[in-house]
């Protein structure tokens, strides 16, 4: 174990890098800003590697713990630590930040320094969310991360960006304010803001239900679960490519992560009582949203709805209370980070050239962009859950867990495999195959080295995780079992 404050570095290094990038000022220094941002993102990624290298997979508790007093007035501490559940997300987040900075390299030409700084700062804040062990610290990072995303959508977004940015911000703020009240309630009853202390706090079922519902509003909006998902398609469609990647790959995971860190262990009885509700909502997301995705004419909207459906799998996995379900859900979250990030990047690649996201404006792209078509194929397949890609592993584990839990739940969940294949591959077919549809497509140039590198790295990750998921699951194993033992032991 390292004695360096690795988690603090993972949080504050990107933020500091973001501030430095901001100092480069106007767009005259754009090349410098880009280079600094890439260096910052890479450095931020490198400091997270030792988290995995030094991780003790046999240990279910918190590792790399940092503890310092922050606001003694309310017993609030700067308390950081990761376990097998959160550690991978810190790394994923740092990794995606590198991708995002690279993805905006030539594409973003307006306010370059601010663009890159926003992503770097957001990356640091989100690392803070994943590694906070203090309720207020978590909340502060959770809410502060809205600010850069609001700006990213609003400044670099599409024509309806103002609406989307406000909807995103207010929707999420609404959820998190009630969450804050639940945190304060827990403090009043325990005298501590430590999440780990709350895990041991005995609470009667009545208050547990209220706490669970307050958590649910915050996390359900963030995930997003049906029926509070409507902000996501708007945000995705209007956000620039980088914004969509971060939203899909990381921001959606925050809500799901919240369920594991807060809802299940703090309100275990309520979680059990309300599990049927959660499973029902998850299945609606999986099936209904899958159908909604099928009819989308806008590619970004389609992938956005597919994200909601995939996140339905995640929440489904959590609330079956089996190791298989929870691990499957976690694998699905990480896999979705790679695949949806790649899907949004692919759409961004086409949008940069044609300036349209409508499926109808494409057709026969394979003729002019063969390399791109091959890689896009892989990600569409992964999105559909093809075996040997990462998309398969998570869904399969969750469905296996569901079969143990209840056949009909598993049956409903399995429908999504068909739907996923339908909407992903049908879109792929309409966009890529066929004759060259119009002169825009005829004039397309294939992906350049930068784009190829980004997609290539993501493709390797997708395949690596699909072929060798043990690397990921062995990290989670002890912590997931610890969590489930804890939850089950506290049910009365």
């Amino acid at each position, binding site marked *: 174990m390292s004695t360096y404050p690795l988690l603090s570095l993972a949080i504050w290094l990107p933020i500091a890098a973001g501030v430095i990038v901001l100092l480069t000022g106007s767009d005259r220094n754009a090349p410098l800003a880009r280079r600094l941002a890439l260096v910052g993102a890479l450095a931020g990624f490198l400091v997270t590697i030792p988290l995995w290298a030094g991780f003790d997979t046999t240990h279910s508790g918190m590792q790399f713990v940092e503890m310092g007093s922050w606001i003694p007035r309310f017993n609030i501490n700067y308390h950081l630590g990761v376990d097998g559940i959160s550690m991978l997300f810190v790394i994923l987040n740092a990794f995606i930040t590198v991708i995002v900075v690279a993805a905006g390299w030539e594409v973003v030409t307006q306010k370059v320094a601010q663009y890159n700084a926003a992503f770097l700062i957001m990356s640091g804040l989100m690392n803070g969310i994943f590694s906070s062990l203090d309720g207020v610290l978590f909340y502060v990072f959770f809410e502060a991360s809205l600010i850069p995303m*609001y700006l990213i959508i*609003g*400044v670099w977004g599409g024509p309806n960006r103002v609406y989307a940015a406000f909807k995103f*911000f207010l929707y999420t*703020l609404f959820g998190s304010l009630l969450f*804050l009240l639940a945190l304060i309630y827990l403090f009043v009853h325990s005298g501590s803001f430590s999440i780990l202390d709350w895990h041991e706090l005995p609470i009667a079922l009545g208050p547990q239900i209220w706490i669970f519902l307050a958590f649910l509003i915050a996390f359900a909006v963030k995930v997003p679960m049906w029926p509070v998902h409507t902000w996501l398609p708007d945000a995705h469609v209007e956000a620039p490519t980088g914004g969509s990647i971060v939203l899909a790959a990381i921001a959606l995971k925050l809500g799901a992560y919240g369920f594991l860190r807060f809802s299940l262990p703090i309100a275990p009885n309520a979680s059990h009582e309300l599990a049927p509700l959660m499973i029902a909502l998850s299945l609606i997301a999986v099936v209904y949203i899958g159908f909604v995705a099928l009819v989308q004419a806008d590619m970004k909207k389609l992938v956005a709805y597919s994200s909601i459906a995939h996140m339905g799998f995640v929440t489904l996995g959590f609330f079956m209370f089996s190791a298989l379900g929870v691990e499957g859900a976690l694998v699905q979250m990480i896999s979705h980070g790679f695949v949806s990030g790649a899907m949004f990047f692919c759409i961004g690649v086409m949008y940069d050239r044609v300036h349209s996201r409508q499926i109808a404006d494409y057709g026969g792209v394979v003729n002019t962009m063969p390399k791109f078509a091959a890689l896009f194929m892989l990600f569409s397949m992964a999105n559909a859950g093809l075996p040997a890609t990462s998309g398969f592993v998570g869904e399969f584990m969750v469905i296996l867990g569901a079969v143990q839990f209840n056949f009909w739940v598993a049956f409903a969940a399995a429908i999504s495999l068909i739907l996923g294949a339908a909407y992903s591959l049908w879109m792929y077919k309409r966009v890529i195959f066929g004759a060259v549809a119009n002169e825009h497509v005829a004039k397309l140039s294939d992906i350049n080295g930068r784009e190829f590198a980004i997609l290539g790295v993501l493709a390797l990750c997708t395949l690596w995780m699909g072929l060798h998921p043990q690397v990921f699951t062995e990290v989670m194993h002890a912590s997931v079992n610890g969590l489930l033992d804890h939850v089950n032991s506290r049910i009365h």
Partner: protein
Amino acid sequence: MFDHFVVPNLQPAASEIFLLVMALAILLIDLFVKDSRRTVIFALSVLTLLGCAVIQYAGSAFVTGVGETTYTFSNMFVDDLMSDMLKLFLYLTVIIVLFYSRAYLVDRSEMNKGEYYVLLLLATLGMMVMISANSFVTVYIGIELLALPLYAMVAMNRQSLAASEAAMKYFILGALASGLLLYGMSMIYGATGSLEITAIAERLANGDVNGNLLAFGLVFLIAGLAFKLGIVPFHMWIPDVYHGAPTSVTLLIASAPKLAAFAIVMRLLVNGLHPLAGDWQVMLMIMAVLSMAIGNLAAIVQTNIKRMLAYSAISHMGFMLLGIVSGVVDGNARLATEAYSSSMFYVISYVLMSLGAFGMILLLARAGFEADTLDDFKGLNQRSPWFAAIMMMLMFSMAGIPFFVGFFAKFSVLMFVIAAGHTWLAIVAVLFSLIGAFYYLRVVKLMYFDAPQDKTPIVDGPDMRLLISVNGVAVAALGLFPQFIMALCVISLRYSLG
């Protein structure tokens, strides 16, 4: 014949005496200063306030180490840790007000007179007297000493119709509120037989008072206080005065008097009428909810940023009251001091944010141009990324988003609201904060998402730029490290309220 005359202990009021002497001296000096050399008066005013701060600090428990409460002038005037701390913040606030207003006043020569500075110093004196009041008479003198110079300052720009209207409204409503306050005081005097706040508290504790008369008086007293705080339903003057007054005066009205108003709430309701907490809490609770509702909803439809910030001020004062109504729960005052200290922290944070926001309007204003509509903030990010970032921090802080001080202000108040068991009140408060977030976000939207209408470079001097930068950074820094100010609030109230 003079046997009974004892020279009172002047030491606790040393800074007030210094300020008064200096204000009168400045009035005289101004006779010999040419219009072009008005900076001398500005500098003297700043030095006066710095002198006050030094005197205050040297005599305070921060230096002497004795957190003792001293009374003087026949117990009409009190000097305790709370007054020391609030006054130090007051001097800082007024100094910032002076710096922010300087360029604005220089551009508007009809206002850049010696009287302006003298009136401002006298208003400050009024606030100091309010903070240190231990008698109804002193409270009243302080309030009037604050209000009369403000009426004049609002009307200082004689050419402006809006300013004259605002001054008129302010004066009439202010006079009415003073009347209500006096009426309430006279009835409480009738019920308890004393004007001295600490003596009233003793008589209430002994219980030999006329309850009906007392409750009746309390209602009027609360009405008067509500006017000074600017909370619903006594908020009508706030939007008109904030809007109509010259921005430099709005800056003053929107900042320092909130500290003084908080102080008299503490003096009257906590030092004096704490046994009646059950009664005044209900009244303030209703007013707090209405203030948050009307303030936040009305702010949404404003196109003038001064008016928007006025409604925002109403909602902030409503939120601040939530801490004051959460002190005593079913007669148990165990958490009272802590709860009041959260309100004090809220007021101090709010003053800091309000200074920054109005300072930003002054920064964008120039000769012949008031940057007081929301559209004047369009595209600020393109004109000046740094000041846009400062304004963004201020807006997010006002909306209560971390890592800014406004979040911890709201957080600490909510803490005691929930600890007092008023969960519904906390839910109402956060839902109105959510509505409030909309109009703060709109300012950010105008600055960042829209193209500028006006591309004039920002020309203010380095002092203004530096100070407003420090102001903005302080909002962020105190959001990262709120402990120090929070602890100061707790300690000062613990010593002062017992």
